[in-house]
C-alpha cells in the first residue's frame, strides 16, 4: 500500500473501447486488491458508515473478514442485512451514503465500501454460496406485487421467516428496474441480476410473470379468492413524465423508459432480437439523473453523438458522480444551464431539432437547489434527430385505483408507514418507489425489509 490516503484503484474497461459495446464498464476488485483496500478500514467502534447505509449493513464487520481473506464469512455478514449485494455494490450512490460517512474520507479517500461489497457478492455468485434456507414453513401465504428491489427483498425476508410467498410481476422478466432500466454495462443481467434472483428463488419464493395487478387480477381478489393473508406492494414508479412542450409526440422523441426498455429488457441493441430501436445519429437526452446518464450512454453505444441537456449546472446533477465521470470519459457532451422550449419537427413528423434557452441559477428553491431562471433573449436551436426525455417518473395509478380503501397522496404515491410499511388498508403493506416516488435501489430494499417486518408482526401476532 503506497498511500494510505488513497483508495485502491479499480480496473475498468478502456473508455474508447467500451463506448462501442454493452460489456460491464467496471471490472471490480480481485481478491488481492479487495484485501488491500480492506486494510484501510479503521474498524471504528462507533461506525458512522453503518448509519449511512439505508439497510445498516455491518460494514466494518464484513470488511474485517475481507481483510482476513474470509470472503464467505464476509458474505454471511452482508446477507444478514442485504438480499442483493451484487446489485447494490454496483448501483448504490455510495458517495452520498455509506462512503460519505467514512472517517477515512475526512482526510483522503473514503474506503471503497461499494466495491468491496461487490467483490464479496460476486465471489458468492461465482462460488454458489447461497443464503441459508428456512427450516420451517409457518403456513402463512403472502403476495408480493412487483419483482423489483423492494419486492425481491420483502419476498426474500419473508421466505427466510418461513412464509409461503408468491411474487407477481407485470413484465415477462423479473427484476423491475434492474432489468428494464439499468443497462447491461452497469449491471449485467445474466451474470448478476438473474443469479441474485435465483438466490431468492432458492429460498422457496414462487414467481408469476405476466400478471398486471389491477387488470389480470386485483389485490382484493388475491386476498378474498386466492387465500393470501397479506400483500406487499412494491410496484415502483414507472410512469414517465414529459415536458408538455410542442413537438413531444413527434417521431424520434422517446421517454427514457421506452428507450431503455427497448435496449435493456428487449435487447434491441442485439440484432438477433426482434424489437427494433431507433438509435439516432445526433441525440439529446433531457434531464440529469441516473436514468438520463443511462439513456445517454446507451445511445452512444448505439452509435450516436449524444448531448445531455440539463437546466441546472454540473454541481446540481442528480446522477451519481461515478456515472457522470464515466459518461464524460466516453464522450457524452454536457449542455448545462440549458432548457428545451420546443421540439422542432419536419413536414413528415420527424424530429429535426430543438429550441432551447440558456438558464442561470437564482435563489435556492424548496428542494434546497438553486432555481434555474431563463436568460431573456438567449434562445437558440440545435439540430437533432432524436430526443430522449428523462424527467423522472411517478407511480402508476393502476394498483391504487383498483384496490378498495388504499390511500394515496397528491403525487399518486401510496401512503405507507416508514417503520413497517402499513398502508390505510388492513394487511396491505407497501414500500419502495410506489411510496416515495423515484428513489434508489437500496432505499427500496430497506422499505421491502420494513414491509416484511410489518407483515410478520401482523401475521404472527407479535
Amino acid at each position: 500500500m503506497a498511500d494510505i490516503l488513497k483508495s485502491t484503484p479499480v480496473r475498468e474497461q478502456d473508455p474508447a473501447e467500451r463506448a462501442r459495446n454493452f460489456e460491464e464498464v467496471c471490472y471490480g476488485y480481485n481478491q488481492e486488491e479487495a484485501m488491500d483496500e480492506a486494510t484501510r478500514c479503521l474498524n471504528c467502534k462507533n461506525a458512522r458508515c453503518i448509519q449511512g447505509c439505508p439497510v445498516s449493513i455491518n460494514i466494518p464487520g464484513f470488511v474485517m473478514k475481507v481483510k482476513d481473506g474470509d470472503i464467505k464469512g464476509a458474505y454471511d455478514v452482508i446477507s444478514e442485512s442485504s438480499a442483493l449485494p451484487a446489485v447494490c455494490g454496483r448501483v448504490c450512490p455510495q458517495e452520498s451514503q455509506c462512503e460519505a460517512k467514512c472517517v477515512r474520507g475526512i482526510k483522503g479517500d473514503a474506503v471503497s465500501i461499494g466495491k468491496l461489497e461487490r467483490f464479496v457478492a460476486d465471489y458468492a455468485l461465482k462460488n454458489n454460496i447461497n443464503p441459508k434456507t428456512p427450516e420451517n414453513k409457518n403456513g402463512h401465504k403472502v403476495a408480493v406485487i412487483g419483482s423489483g428491489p423492494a419486492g425481491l427483498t420483502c419476498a426474500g425476508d419473508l421466505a427466510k421467516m418461513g412464509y409461503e410467498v408468491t411474487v407477481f410481476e407485470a413484465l415477462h422478466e423479473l427484476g423491475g428496474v434492474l432489468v428494464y432500466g439499468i443497462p447491461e454495462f452497469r449491471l449485467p443481467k445474466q451474470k448478476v441480476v438473474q443469479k441474485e434472483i435465483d438466490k431468492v428463488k432458492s429460498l422457496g419464493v414462487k414467481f408469476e410473470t405476466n400478471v398486471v395487478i389491477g387488470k389480470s387480477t386485483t389485490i382484493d381478489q388475491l386476498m378474498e379468492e386466492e387465500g393470501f393473508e397479506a400483500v406487499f406492494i412494491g410496484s415502483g414508479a414507472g410512469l414517465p413524465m414529459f415536458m408538455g412542450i410542442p413537438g413531444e409526440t413527434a417521431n424520434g422523441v422517446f421517454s427514457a423508459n421506452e428507450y431503455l426498455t427497448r435496449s435493456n429488457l428487449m435487447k434491441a441493441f442485439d440484432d438477433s432480437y426482434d424489437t427494433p430501436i431507433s438509435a439516432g445519429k445526433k441525440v439529446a437526452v433531457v434531464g440529469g439523473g441516473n436514468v438520463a446518464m443511462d439513456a445517454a450512454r446507451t445511445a452512444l453505444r448505439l452509435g450516436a453523438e449524444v448531448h445531455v441537456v440539463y437546466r441546472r449546472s454540473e454541481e446540481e446533477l442528480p446522477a451519481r458522480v461515478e456515472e457522470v465521470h464515466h459518461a464524460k470519459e466516453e464522450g457524452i457532451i454536457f449542455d448545462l444551464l440549458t432548457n428545451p422550449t420546443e421540439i422542432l419537427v419536419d413536414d413528415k413528423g420527424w424530429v429535426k431539432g430543438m429550441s432551447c434557452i440558456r438558464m442561470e441559477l437564482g435563489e435556492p428553491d424548496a428542494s434546497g437547489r438553486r432555481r434555474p431562471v431563463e436568460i431573456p433573449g438567449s434562445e437558440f436551436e440545435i439540430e437533432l434527430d432524436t430526443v430522449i426525455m428523462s424527467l423522472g417518473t411517478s407511480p402508476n395509478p393502476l394498483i391504487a385505483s383498483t384496490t378498495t380503501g388504499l390511500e394515496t397522496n397528491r403525487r399518486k404515491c401510496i401512503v405507507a408507514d416508514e417503520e413497517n410499511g402499513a398502508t390505510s388498508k388492513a394487511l396491505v403493506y407497501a414500500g419502495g418507489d410506489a411510496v416515495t416516488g423515484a428513489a434508489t435501489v437500496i432505499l427500496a430494499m430497506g422499505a421491502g425489509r420494513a414491509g416484511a417486518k410489518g407483515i410478520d408482526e401482523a401475521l404472527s401476532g407479535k
Partner: protein
Amino acid sequence: MYKIVKAEKLADLIYLMDVEAPRVARHCQPGQFVIVKIDEKGERIPLTICDYDREAGTVTIVLQTVGASTERMASLKEGDYFRDFVGPLGVASEFVHEDLEELKKKKILFVGGGVGAAPVYPQVKWLKEQGVDVDVDVIIGSKTKDMLILQDEMKAVAGNYYPCTDDGSYGHSGMVTTKIEALVNEGKKYDVCVAIGPMIMMKFVCLLTKKLEIPTIVSMNPIMVDGTGMCGACRLHVGDEVKFACVDGPEFDGHLVDFDESMQRQALYKTQEGRAMLKLKEGDTHHGGCGNCGGDE
C-alpha cells in the same frame, strides 16, 4: 408458457388462435387487449381480444401477418406455446359500465375494417348477451370476399350485418363509408358509432360521422412496448391532451383523435421492420442489404 389450443387460418394472411391464459380469460372485457411474445427473442405485440371462454380459461386472438413477428406467430400450430401472454390490458369499452336499460334504448352502429372485425365481435357479442341486440348494426369492410372473416359469428350476434368489399365481390360494393352514408340516407339513425380497423379507415369514418353528427368511438392501434403505461410509446393527441393508448384507451372519442399524427408515428420503425421481414424471408441467404453493397453500413 401459454398453450395454443386451437390455430386456424381464417383468410389469406389472417389467423385465429385460442390460447390458454386463465387469468386473462377470467377478467377480460370487450375492448381490452393482450400483449403476446413468441419466444425468448421475440418482441411484445399488442393484439385485441376477439373472444374468451371463462370456463375453459382460453382467450381468442386474431392476427394478420404484416411483418416478421406476426409472420413467425402465424407459423405456430395447435399445441405450440407462446412464451408470454399478458392481459387483459387497456380499459373496457365504455358501454360495459353503462346502465343496461339506457343502453337498450340506443341504436349502435359498429364498423369493422379488415382484421378489425375481430375486435368488433366481442363487443357485439357482449351486447347481444345483455339483450341489446335489436338495433346493433354491423358493417364489415374488406378488400375482397375471401378476406371477410368471422361472418357466421357476426351474423349470429348482430342485429343487421352488412358486408362490404372494395372490389364488389360480395355484399355492398365499396368502402364502409359509402355504406354508412347509404344507411343514413335510408333513414337510419344512430346514437353512437364504434369503428375499428386500419387508422386510415377510422379517420375517414370519423370525418363522415362528424358531418353526420354521430358520436364515434375508435380503437387506436399505435406502436406499444410494455402496454402497462410505463413508456409512452403509444402516446397520441386526443384533443389538446396527450394520452397513452395502452392505459387511457385503446378506445377514444374518434372526433378528437389526431389521426395524421398517429399514422406518422406508426411509420417510426418502417425501415427496421422492412429489414426484419427481408431477413426472415431470405433466411440464411440474407446479407443485410442488396447483397452487393453490404447494406447501409
